[in-house]
């Protein structure tokens, strides 16, 4: 009876995993293959002959290239600002008294659960009231805000692992606050900060819900450009753009594995066997 039940469970699990994998990965794989289609139109799958025409179109289009330029620039600046501010805030939260740190961390993490559209709509009002019209700055400020919860959380996990005795030793030897942060906290938390950096980069590259309220005619990001093309002309240049974005993700994962180790980002929990 027991073995029978376990076999059913095993088969069920295998089926669930197979279905999940198919639903999650198949569409993207199909897009990558379709992006090499030589035909001028979206024809039946799989493509009969391959070419790079859609990539040519993607890289030739000044609309896409402007978008890509701003997307990369904004994502890098966002990641830099967000991981810096996030690290400093995480140090503050970790060492501040609980009665201050608890409400502050709640409000720092709150942007995670507020719908992006509500935030974008509100930010639009805010900038209109302030008379702030610098589109690039608007998008950057909004992206730093929405990525900060991730950078704070990852930096906090890095700082959590630092022994209090190390800090005390440094202080008792006469280190200043800045020295403790630069020489002890920063190097030990470096890999967590790097993780936060990549998360911020990825989510800045991806955001639409907030950004769509803030873009102008001259400054816009790649997802916005793809979205507007999807609505106007559903062709395969978007597949080429998608493949390019998947490539960026793969490069990021490679960096993440090389710099931090993917296993370490997630952590093994209290019963994890680190050696196995």
């Amino acid at each position, binding site marked *: 009876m027991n073995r029978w039940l*376990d076999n059913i469970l095993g088969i069920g699990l295998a089926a669930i995993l197979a279905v999940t994998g198919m639903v999650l990965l198949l569409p993207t794989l199909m897009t990558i293959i379709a992006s090499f289609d030589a035909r001028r139109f979206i024809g039946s799958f799989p493509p009969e002959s391959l070419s790079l025409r859609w990539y040519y179109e993607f890289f030739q289009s000044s609309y896409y290239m402007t978008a890509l330029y701003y997307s990369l620039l904004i994502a890098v600046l966002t990641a830099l600002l967000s991981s810096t501010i996030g690290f400093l805030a995480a140090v503050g939260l970790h060492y*501040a008294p609980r009665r201050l740190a608890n409400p502050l961390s709640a*409000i720092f993490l709150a942007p995670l659960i507020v719908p992006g559209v509500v935030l974008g709509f509100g930010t*639009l009002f805010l900038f209109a009231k302030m008379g702030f019209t610098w589109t690039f700055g608007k998008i950057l*400020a909004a992206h730093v805000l929405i990525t900060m919860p991730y950078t704070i959380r990852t930096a906090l996990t890095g700082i959590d692992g630092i022994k209090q005795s190390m800090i005390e030793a440094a202080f008792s030897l006469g280190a200043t606050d800045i020295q*403790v942060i630069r020489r002890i906290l920063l190097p030990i938390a470096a890999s967590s900060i790097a993780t936060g950096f990549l998360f911020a980069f990825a989510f800045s590259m991806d955001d639409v819900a907030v950004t769509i309220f803030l873009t102008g005619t001259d400054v816009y990001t790649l997802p916005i450009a793809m979205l507007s093309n999807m609505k106007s002309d559903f062709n395969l240049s978007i597949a080429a753009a998608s493949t390019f974005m998947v490539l960026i993700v793969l490069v990021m994962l490679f960096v993440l594995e090389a710099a931090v180790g993917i296993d370490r980002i997630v952590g093994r929990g209290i019963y994890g066997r680190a050696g*196995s």
Partner: protein
Amino acid sequence: MGAALGNGNWPLAVGRYWAGGCLMNDMMFTRVTLALLLVTATALVLVMFVCPLIIVCIESLRQYVPGSIGANADAPFTFENYGPLLHNAYFRYFADTIVISLLSTLVTIFLSYPTAHILARTANRALRTCGLSVLLAILFTSALVKVYSIALVMGPVGFGGVLSSLFGTYPTSRLMSEISVSIGLISFLYPISTLTLMNAIQNVNPNYVTAAVSLGSSWTKAYIYIELPQCRSAIMSTCALCFTLGVSAFVIPLILGRGQVSFVTNLIYTRFSEIANYPSGASLATLLLLGVALIFALLRLANAVLDVGKKNGRIVHESLAR
């Protein structure tokens, strides 16, 4: 003397002792440093997060003046922006948002729990790294890429025809749009849900399950009766998180809904982009915000109730042990 103190910084250490105000603060950052560390993030959150939300709530109560972003400072307060939202025409948007997000959340949890379990418990390092890489790849892949891919697959050149005949409809039917949006939401929520659940399962002692099996239980029963209940609160908060993210989704219903399925988020955007009725958009945004707040309030309540139950259980357990 100088060597004993390590370096020339000892006057600072003495200064810290006095600045700290008491002995306990000696080995800590000064209050000034802590304040400086926190001030940038606090300022950013206040200006870019708290202010916009307050403005949205206030704007939703202002009278509609066509053609301006934001009402005049002296515009009268009114509830009339909320009135039309009670109309039947809006019911469908709210219903679509809630029903599709809820179903997608449940399916996501159901699909991601086994993966989370395997990744949490496997001793095979290569399998774990490989699985986590795929999860992170899905997490980092832009929603735009997912949406385009799903639109392609569900379209005329993909499997749209086959799938729709499987469900007994035609490819452009509303049902197919609903299914597309659900698939989009699931592929968006799946990595988040799996990573959250994995963290929870990792912190459940695996020895309880092993003990149950060695005492004659089947693995199936051991998982269902021992591991699952210990993850109950994590599963509930993952549900709340996924549902919130689902309700907040914007691009997924916008493209995959094909105009047949729209979420409240899409409605808010239309208020901005097409009909420029900002107060009406603001009142929808306020409702969405209240809805999200309600979900997390309910989660807190449920967790509190469960915690009380646990404590009672523990008391009963301890009294029996005595």
